[in-house]
């Protein structure tokens, strides 16, 4: 809860909530956790957000364990409750992959499943009231704790980079280095005249590279932006709880309403990330 009524403490509250638990090298050369945004910034690239890593890996492991249990018990017989649920998700993913991915690649469907469920779980952390886990962490002596990994651009960009790497890999593997290069340079502008053709190459290359790079960036920032905005609104609503009874009740109602709406975003963003990944891989597999 925000403790003070002044604008300054509200700002501090928000800033505190938006600060990751960063581990890295201090400016004086020693290693340790950053105390505050300034210190975290000074640590530069070779620092790590321990909370983001912890929660994302924990949720990933939860996902893998649950689904692995289902996979071990999976048989052609009549499925029980949990197995049924897992099979429903698998069929949903499978149908999605089948409808938008037309090539033979055993990796795409498991990739889509992992992305969907993992992102869904990470997003769902947003529905846990914003103060619970950070307060618990504070009681345990941990200064900062951001529990929603997808509100950290590092997490979303990390996944987007993974997808980008696969896109490049399959583009080159399927079309060959020359095929991929020609895809980057020979379109959208085409000409019969050789001189014009050479003139078009840099223009095409520029356009295609921009569109190529925009894919992982949009993938990453879309997820991050949606979840960050949602988290921000939860934090702002939480500020109301310190404004007296009327505001607290209003805050409770608002939080509930926003949480209900946010369920849609949580699900939708996971789905969009997955679908776009499938589409990008489909594009990587097919010639233009």
């Amino acid at each position, binding site marked *: 809860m925000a403790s003070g009524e002044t604008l300054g403490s509200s700002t501090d509250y928000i800033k505190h909530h938006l600060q990751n638990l960063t581990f890295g090298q201090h400016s004086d050369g020693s290693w340790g956790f950053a105390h505050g945004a300034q210190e975290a910034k000074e640590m530069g690239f070779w620092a790590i*957000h321990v909370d983001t*890593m912890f929660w994302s890996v924990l949720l990933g492991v939860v996902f893998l364990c649950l689904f692995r249990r289902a996979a071990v018990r999976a048989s052609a017989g009549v499925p029980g409750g949990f197995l049924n649920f897992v099979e429903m998700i698998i069929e949903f993913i499978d149908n999605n992959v089948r409808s938008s991915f037309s090539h033979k690649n055993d990796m795409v469907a498991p990739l889509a499943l992992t*992305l969907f469920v993992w992102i869904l779980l990470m997003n769902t952390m947003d529905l846990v009231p914003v103060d619970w886990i950070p307060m618990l962490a504070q009681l345990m002596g941990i200064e900062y704790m951001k529990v929603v990994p997808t509100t950290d651009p590092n997490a979303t960009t990390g996944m987007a980079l993974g997808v980008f790497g696969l896109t490049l890999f399959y583009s080159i593997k399927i079309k060959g280095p020359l095929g991929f290069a020609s895809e980057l340079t020979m379109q959208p502008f085409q000409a019969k005249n050789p001189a014009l053709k050479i003139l078009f190459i840099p223009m095409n290359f520029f356009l295609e590279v921009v569109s190529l790079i925009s894919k992982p960036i949009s993938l990453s920032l879309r997820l991050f932006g949606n979840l960050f905005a949602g988290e921000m609104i939860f934090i702002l609503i939480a500020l109301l709880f310190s404004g007296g009874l009327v505001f607290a009740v209003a805050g409770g109602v608002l939080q509930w309403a926003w949480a209900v709406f946010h369920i849609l975003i949580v699900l939708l963003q996971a789905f969009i990330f997955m679908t776009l990944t499938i589409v990008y891989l489909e594009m990587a597999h097919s010639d233009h």
Partner: protein
Amino acid sequence: MNINATLIGQTIAFAVFVWFCMKFIWPPIVGALNERKTQIADGLAAAEEGRRDKAKAEGDVAEMLNEAKDQAQEIIRRAERRETEMVEEAKANARTEGERILLAARGEIDKEMNLAREELRKDVAQLAVAGASQILSREVDSSAHSRLLDELAKEL
């Protein structure tokens, strides 16, 4: 909200999760789903086949029933024909037997009659001879007149 090494950590975690999912989660579940799909398809096909077999068996049964009815009809008809045949045969047998008995009886009667006639003739001849001898009161040389007597007997 700084971009830092978390990025690399996340990429690695992502790669490991995808690899694990691809290796240990997706294949067994999808395999089980596909297996179930084939089993259901097989079951439906078997049910369809069973239904077809049943219909066919029903047709066969009706056909067999008709055949059996026809056969029964045929057997009854044959039996009836045989019955009339047997009756006719028996009648014919009885008729021939009767005729044969009649014929034999007639032969017997004829023989008896001939015998009786012969006897009678002999008796009459003797009576005639005795009568004649008594009438004539004299000895008739039977040997001398035997020819005569025989002729007489024959004429009787």
